[in-house]
């Protein structure tokens, strides 16, 4: 069997497992008494072991197997989540991370003998526990007495799934209201209009209320970060302190969970690349202890999360030199702006460092941060001053339940495209910098851009010929593409129902929605078309 076509999938899947493993390790490090992260860790190593063994990557299979054995001992309560165990597993994750890519290229990865030996030795210290009563488990924090003096009200615990259900229904109401609105507009009747208007404001209030019920304090997200920063500092021989601000801010639970990985990555980056060593800082007249400030601020329906460090700032010239080496910028161009810097740093596998440290510098990550925030409909900006520090700002919507889409017509049907992907909507031929050739080649702002004709994709039939057609210029992650359609129908806020698409539907249909006139429309994931 030809395995080569599975390497990309193996790599993506493998990185995903390792990312989850890291998150579980961090949780376990903080709560050594919990067994849930141990299960998660076990599964992550286990899945990677299976894939690696299938691909014939012996070293990765061997390391994951040893990690699994160590975790088995923990599950049998013969070992605890001691510093030694957690530390060694962190090292294992790093070694695996370094080994994934070389393995897929058939090259030797890092030498794992020492690490494998250490894992085996540690597993062999596991003492079979005497049978007896199960260790008393610390009561979950939720069991603690409510603290009325802090919140001034009683709290009830509700399964988040029920809140999701409520929100779903409130969202359906919003859509039904839109539909009623279009009917009322066609039949002018003051009484009907007033009743519909009242219904309208009630539904808005209900929807807002359900959204608020799903909000969780951002402290849930921030709480574990000071510890991570301290540990990172210790690993890298730096002293670093994290200050938290805006902890009273609340954010949709789903968005909150999605932000954990990106923020941990930025924190790691800040401590590793951003902050100077204590000696260097002292010689520069800065306090020896590096300072990071993580803050959150609400701006209408958006939350802005900023991470500022008082380190050395991004090395603009260094990035430029590397970018020239990679062939990403012209050697004789203007100075890089903050936006240019971020765009370069977010390119997959772009790294300024030549050596890789235990913490970062492998050129993975910044692209993941940007694409994760984008997938939430948000954006990332960067501000940096040489010698003074760097600030990243992540702006994310308060909730992702209702999405803004661009509605287009193609082949007689209507399709919704998430607005966050649409960089520009234009009519080819009307502008000199958007040129559609009769053979389907498309040039946008002087660059050839891959173009897919939605009419052809949707109907399988021929596309309406002609060089004057509406075209959407799309951007996602570091990729782009253009989508030719028949008509542009405007922006709408819709409630997207994600569904398991039946096999008869193409892969680029990611969900469905009911439009204001009551007709259904497919929501597209146009990235699956390219």
């Amino acid at each position: 069997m030809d395995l080569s076509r599975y390497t990309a999938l193996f790599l993506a899947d493998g990185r995903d497992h390792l990312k989850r493993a890291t998150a579980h390790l961090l949780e376990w490090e903080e709560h050594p008494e919990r067994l849930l992260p141990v299960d998660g860790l076990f599964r992550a190593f286990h899945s990677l072991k299976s894939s690696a063994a299938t691909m014939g990557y012996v070293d990765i299979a061997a390391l994951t197997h040893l990690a699994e054995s160590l975790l088995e001992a923990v599950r049998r309560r013969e070992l605890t989540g001691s510093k030694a165990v957690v530390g060694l597993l962190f090292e294992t994750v790093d070694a695996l991370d370094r080994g994934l890519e070389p393995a897929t290229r058939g090259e030797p990865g890092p030498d794992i003998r020492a690490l494998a030996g250490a894992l085996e030795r540690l597993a062999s210290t596991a003492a079979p526990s005497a049978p007896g009563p199960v260790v008393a488990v610390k009561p979950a924090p939720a069991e603690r007495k409510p603290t009325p003096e802090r919140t001034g009200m009683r709290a009830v615990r509700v399964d988040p799934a029920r809140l999701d259900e409520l929100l779903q229904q409130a969202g359906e109401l919003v859509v039904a209201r839109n539909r009623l609105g279009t009917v009322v507009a066609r039949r002018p009747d003051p009484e009907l209009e007033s009743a519909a208007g009242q219904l309208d404001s009630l539904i808005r209030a209900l929807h807002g209320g359900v959204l608020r019920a799903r909000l969780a304090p951002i402290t849930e997200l921030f709480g574990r970060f000071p510890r991570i920063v301290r540990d990172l500092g210790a690993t890298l021989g730096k002293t670093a302190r994290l200050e938290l601000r805006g902890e009273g801010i609340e954010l949709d639970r789903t968005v909150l969970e999605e932000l954990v990985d990106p923020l941990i990555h930025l924190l790691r980056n800040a401590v590793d690349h951003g902050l100077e060593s204590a000696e260097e800082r002292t010689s520069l007249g800065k306090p020896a202890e590096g300072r990071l400030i993580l803050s959150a601020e609400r701006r209408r329906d958006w939350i802005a999360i900023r991470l500022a460090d008082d380190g050395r700032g991004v090395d603009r010239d260094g990035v430029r030199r590397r970018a020239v080496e990679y062939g990403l910028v012209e050697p004789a161009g203007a100075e890089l702006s903050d936006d240019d810097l971020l765009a370069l740093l977010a390119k997959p596998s772009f790294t300024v460092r030549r050596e890789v440290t235990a913490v970062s510098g492998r050129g993975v990550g910044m692209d993941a941060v940007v694409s994760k925030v984008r997938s939430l409909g948000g954006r990332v900006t960067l501000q940096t001053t040489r010698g003074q520090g760097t600030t990243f700002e992540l702006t994310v919507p308060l909730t992702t339940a209702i999405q803004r889409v661009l509605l287009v017509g193609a082949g007689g049907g209507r399709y919704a495209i998430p607005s966050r992907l649409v960089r520009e909507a234009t009519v080819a031929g009307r502008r000199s910098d958007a040129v559609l050739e009769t053979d389907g080649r498309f040039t946008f702002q002087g660059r050839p851009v891959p173009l897919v004709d939605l009419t052809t994709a949707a109907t399988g039939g021929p596309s309406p010929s002609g060089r004057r057609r509406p075209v959407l210029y799309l951007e996602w992650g570091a990729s782009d593409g253009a989508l030719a359609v028949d008509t542009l129908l405007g922006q709408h806020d819709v409630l997207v129902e994600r569904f398991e698409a039946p096999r008869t539907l193409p892969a680029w249909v990611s969900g469905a929605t009911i439009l204001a006139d009551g007709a259904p429309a497919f929501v597209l994931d146009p990235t699956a078309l390219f």
Partner: protein
Amino acid sequence: MAQTVLVCDDAMFMRTMIGDILTQAGFEVVGEAETGDQAVAKYRQLKPDLVTMDIVMPSMGGIEAVRAICKDSPDAKILMCSAMGQQALVVEAIQAGAKDFVVKPFQPSRVLEAVQRLLG
């Protein structure tokens, strides 16, 4: 009509590969599940001719899923996919109602052999 398969594994890599092996052999993969819960729900919904089931999955493992499926459908044809070192679990799965097993890493021929034996 092609025989239908439900592929249950928490790793996308494994689902893709098993799906490819079976599709190339003329089966139709009608569904995929990432957790035991999903496996049970999708089995009820899709009634596939065959299920491939990983043992280690989040929120209800493969063995419990086998038990739940076989409770309603004792004739369900479930092929366990286990990694090395899980022999004890394989025995448990067979007792729970699984009909056969293959050990990862897979040899495609071994997977198809087991499948044909099951459906034979």
